[in-house]
């Protein structure tokens, strides 16, 4: 079910015709309270980021300030523009990592959904079991092993461990099962197509909507990850936004004059994901077993 769909709308319209609007007041009220709770901190930071350091402490909470552009300019000038670098790094980690993750999930999910072979259940249970392994058990030894390989504190150390996504493989398998008909694969086989050709020309195009969903989930997971880059990286020029924001906070928490920088940084780190989220709504699904993304 996509976020953008509202099959209840027709039902609700009929109900309203029967005078159901009044009865809908309680659920609507509860949901509105939830929406206010969830939107409040985000709208607060959008306003707070417009205030100069002076206005932040002197004006009313919801008054829009006059310092947005100077805040952004200050932030971009902070330590020779390191914030812009964090932003680009985050796009790199999340974009490349999620694309590779979708590719690996696609081939693995396809094999698990469309082939029967010895070890299939074992492979699936092993891969899906990864969901249950706490990040902590992995992050510390991953750091030690990657530093032995000379890769700690490099882009690779953040990129490589985040390609494998058990959840992605799980989604790819159910989506492929539902969206790629066996008869189509059989027809391609009769036409003499090889395994790779059947996968890339017949199955893959049908799997694309599901893969977009996998890409989005992994993009958000990498974008939001704090623990792994926090452990792996020492050089702040390789930081993603989460670790950068943390160091900004750690440096400025006791200096109210830096609060506007921190708040502007928080605002700028939220905007790209919120934009992605609002524009790609129909792909945000937790259930891919129906086989098709409805719009």
């Amino acid at each position, binding site marked *: *079910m996509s976020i*953008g769909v509202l099959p*209840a*709308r027709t*039902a609700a319209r009929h109900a309203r015709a029967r005078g*159901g609007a009044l009865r*809908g007041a309680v659920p*609507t009220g509860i*949901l509105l309270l*939830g*929406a206010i*709770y*969830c*939107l409040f*901190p*985000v709208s607060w930071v959008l306003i707070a980021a417009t205030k100069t350091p002076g206005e932040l402490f002197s004006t009313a*909470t919801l008054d829009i300030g006059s310092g947005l552009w100077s805040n952004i300019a200050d932030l971009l000038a902070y330590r020779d523009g390191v914030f812009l670098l964090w932003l680009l790094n985050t796009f790199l980690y999340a974009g490349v990592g999620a694309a590779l993750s979708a590719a*690996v999930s696609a081939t693995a999910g396809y*094999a698990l959904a469309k*082939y*029967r*072979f010895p070890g*299939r259940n074992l*492979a699936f*249970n092993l891969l899906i*079991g990864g*969901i*249950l392994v706490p990040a*902590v058990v*992995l992050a*510390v*030894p*991953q750091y*030690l*092993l990657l530093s032995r390989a000379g890769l700690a504190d490099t882009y690779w150390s953040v990129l*490589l461990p985040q390609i*494998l996504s058990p959840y992605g*493989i799980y989604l790819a398998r*159910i989506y492929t*099962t539902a969206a790629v008909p*066996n008869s189509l694969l*059989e027809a391609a*086989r009769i036409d003499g197509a090889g*395994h790779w050709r059947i996968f890339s020309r017949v199955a893959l195009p049908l799997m694309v909507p599901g893969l977009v969903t996998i890409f989005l989930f992994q993009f*958000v997971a990498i974008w939001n990850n*704090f*623990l792994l880059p*926090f452990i792996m990286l020492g050089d702040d020029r390789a930081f993603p936004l*989460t670790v950068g*924001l*943390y160091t900004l*906070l750690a440096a400025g928490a*006791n200096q109210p004059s830096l609060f506007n920088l921190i*708040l502007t940084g928080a605002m700028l780190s*939220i905007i790209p*994901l*919120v934009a992605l*989220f609002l524009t790609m709504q129909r792909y*945000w699904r937790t259930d891919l*077993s129906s086989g098709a993304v409805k719009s």
Partner: protein
Amino acid sequence: MTKRKGARVNRAGAAPYLFLAPAMVLFTLFLALPIGYTIYLSLRRVQVSGLGLGRGSRREVFAGLDNYAAAVADAELWAGWLRVLGYGAMVLAVMLGLALLFALMLDTAHVRLARFTRIAIFLPYAVPGVAATLLWGFLYLPSLSPFQGVLEAFGGEANLLGAGTVVYSMANVAVWGGVGFNMLVLYTTLRAVPREYYEAARIDGASELQIALRVKIPILIPAIILTTVFSIIATIQVFTEPTALRPITNTISSTWSPLMKVYRDAFVIGDVYAAAATSIVIAAIALVLSFGFLRVVKNHAFGEG
């Protein structure tokens, strides 16, 4: 029927293994190997001979279960477990309770603004944990907080970052960040139920509330178990929120949660052996929960097996 269907695409040879190879290579390098290495490290320790100076004076030796004994006997670690237990119980109850409430409200027949409220409640999912903690942290700061006046007017404790209140403030950040995703999972499950299913109950004269309690909640049980297990695994590892709040308040110790202690042992103190043993203990607790989880997943999600 399924078996025959599978048999038709069976003449595969090496193909499925090649398709699986990238995932299995990554699994081996970034999952199996680190887990094996953690177990290995947890059984080792450094033996210092002489003054511990010079080459060869520090040797890694087999330590048996000493590190585990130390981890189990560590009072600070137990205190951390208790803190996380209290925090986690609060987060799970409130977050999943609200997620269930919102999902049921979205699924009622007469609700308005459903699209807007659903998107709004899911929005915090797009906010990184560090940024969420930072936003709320600043909202808790007495010099900035818009809640300050309200709290004082009601005679409540004014300091949201005090020793007695910080755990609730932190739980609020986790609830805020997680309620939308869980709501979506539950709502998706509800939307998959044919509408006629409820008609029978309606014809029998059941109210919307009765339908929610007697029909919808039982349907949601497997999904609730699933989201609960995922939330427990995430909560056991709480790290980002307390770590990101530390610069703002001095009421959170560097070993507030077990995972923070692992980080401190490994990277501040430099005792990776103790850190490895503690990680394994954390993993063991998650593993115990995983059995229940796999049963649920197998029974409800992989019917196509």
